[in-house]
């Protein structure tokens, strides 16, 4: 893990975001060092997904600053944002596969658009990505023919094929059965180890969190109310983090 002093990694300071009257983020701070696997926990509607979208400039914050490797994301123009996003990949909650394309076309699109690689090489890399997520047979299928777990895995293959430096996961295991969830978690672990990416995993699935995360942050009412390593999270005896781990609604409500 590299330090934060040199400005590398992701740094979020005092970010506010409202939708109408609804305050989603109210001064959230976050530091993610290069190579780290950060888990962002929180109940539904606490602004976890919004935070991911703010980091890559898909949304603009109402106040606060966001930097990636020292570059200010908030003030970036479209062209700079696109350059930044080529170093990122995101696995969306519902997969967000392009449903007018086959799985193979979905996975290879990023390479076709952004590299001048010959088609054979692009297909080879896409096949390798599909192999990593155990979907080598599903290349010619349309997304509508896939199950929920397969869609998530295809989305993962699309995310890794461009070999990003940062991988953002928006609830990668939500709505999946325990076995498929476990397979996805192992895959995320493997990608972290093999590709050495910096990842942010937004989730409310504790099993998943403990499997994939180095450091934890708990988001509540628009701020981080817990920051620490996986062991520290596990060791907490009281407070919102303990309540979240135990699923205790009497404490977690406030």
């Amino acid at each position: 893990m590299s330090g934060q002093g040199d400005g590398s990694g992701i740094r979020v300071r005092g970010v506010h975001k409202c939708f109408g009257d609804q305050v989603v983020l109210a001064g959230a701070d976050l530091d993610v060092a290069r190579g780290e696997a950060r888990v962002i926990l929180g109940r539904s509607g606490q602004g976890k997904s919004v935070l991911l979208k703010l980091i890559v400039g898909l949304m603009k914050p109402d106040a606060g600053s966001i930097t990636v490797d020292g570059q200010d994301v908030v003030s970036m123009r479209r062209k700079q944002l696109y350059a930044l996003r080529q170093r990122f990949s995101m696995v969306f909650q519902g997969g967000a596969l392009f449903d007018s394309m086959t799985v193979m076309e979905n996975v290879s699109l990023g390479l076709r658009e952004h590299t001048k690689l010959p088609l054979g090489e692009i297909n080879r890399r896409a096949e390798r990505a599909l192999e990593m997520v155990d979907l080598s047979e599903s290349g010619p299928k349309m997304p509508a023919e896939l199950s929920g777990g397969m869609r998530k895995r295809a989305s993962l293959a699309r995310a890794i094929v461009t070999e990003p430096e940062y991988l953002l996961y928006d609830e990668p295991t939500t709505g999946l059965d325990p076995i498929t969830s476990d397979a996805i978690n192992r895959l995320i672990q493997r990608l972290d180890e093999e590709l050495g990416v910096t990842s942010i995993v937004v989730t409310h699935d504790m099993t998943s969190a403990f499997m994939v995360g180095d450091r934890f942050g708990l988001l509540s009412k628009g701020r981080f109310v817990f920051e620490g390593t996986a062991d520290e999270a596990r060791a907490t005896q009281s407070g919102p983090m303990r309540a979240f781990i135990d699923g205790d609604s009497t404490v977690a409500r406030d």
Partner: protein
Amino acid sequence: MLVFQRIGATAFGSLRDLGRLGMLQWQLITVLVAIPRSLRLILRQMYIIGNGSIPLVLVTSVFTGAVATVQAHYQFQDYVPIRFLGTVVAKSVVIELGPVLTALVVGARVGASIAAELGTMRVTEQIDALEMMAIDPVRYLAMPRFVAACIMLPVLTIFSDGIAIFGGFFVAVQSLDVPEKVFTDGLRFLFDSKDVWGGLIKGFCFGAIIALSGCANGFNARGGAAGVGEAAMRAVVTASLLILVTDYVLAAVIFQVLFS
């Protein structure tokens, strides 16, 4: 008060819609340089918009020509010589009926389908996914549809002109007992290629309106299935109204200024 609030909200909504069309138009112009690398996407859209609309335009045009002929024949009575029947049918079809009716039916079909497709992509985060992959949705999704519609609407208009005139001819000869030669001589009489060009310019502009309206409403869809339905409806309403308003403006510009 409530009435005024509603009127205000509707007016504001319409202005906002127009503003979105204008903004998208501007963004589209800036990505037109990417046409050469998007040929495959454009051809695919040309096929969907053009070939897919042929049955609809065929039926619409046959009956348009037939009705124009029957009505003109009825209006002529004994006051206007029947040799002008072909002339009137050809002029009204080529200048007005062909381009406008084609645009209205194709607008409903294509505008709604573009808005529903892009709207679904918006609400299922597929457009965010494109943005995330650093692929400009305006360049990748809107531009091919825009270019394809601008090319295919004039093509469909020509097709519609031919079919409508044939429909008129068929009705005139078969049911109104007009001799073939009288009708075809009428067609040739006063025929001016400027009329056809005028109709094609209209088709081009209507194609732009249809694609813009579909794309702008699709991109701005919010909130699940209901939002997608709303986007499709707005796309058709906006396109239809703009086609009719633009038709008037173009009539004035093309036939009174450009070709006069």
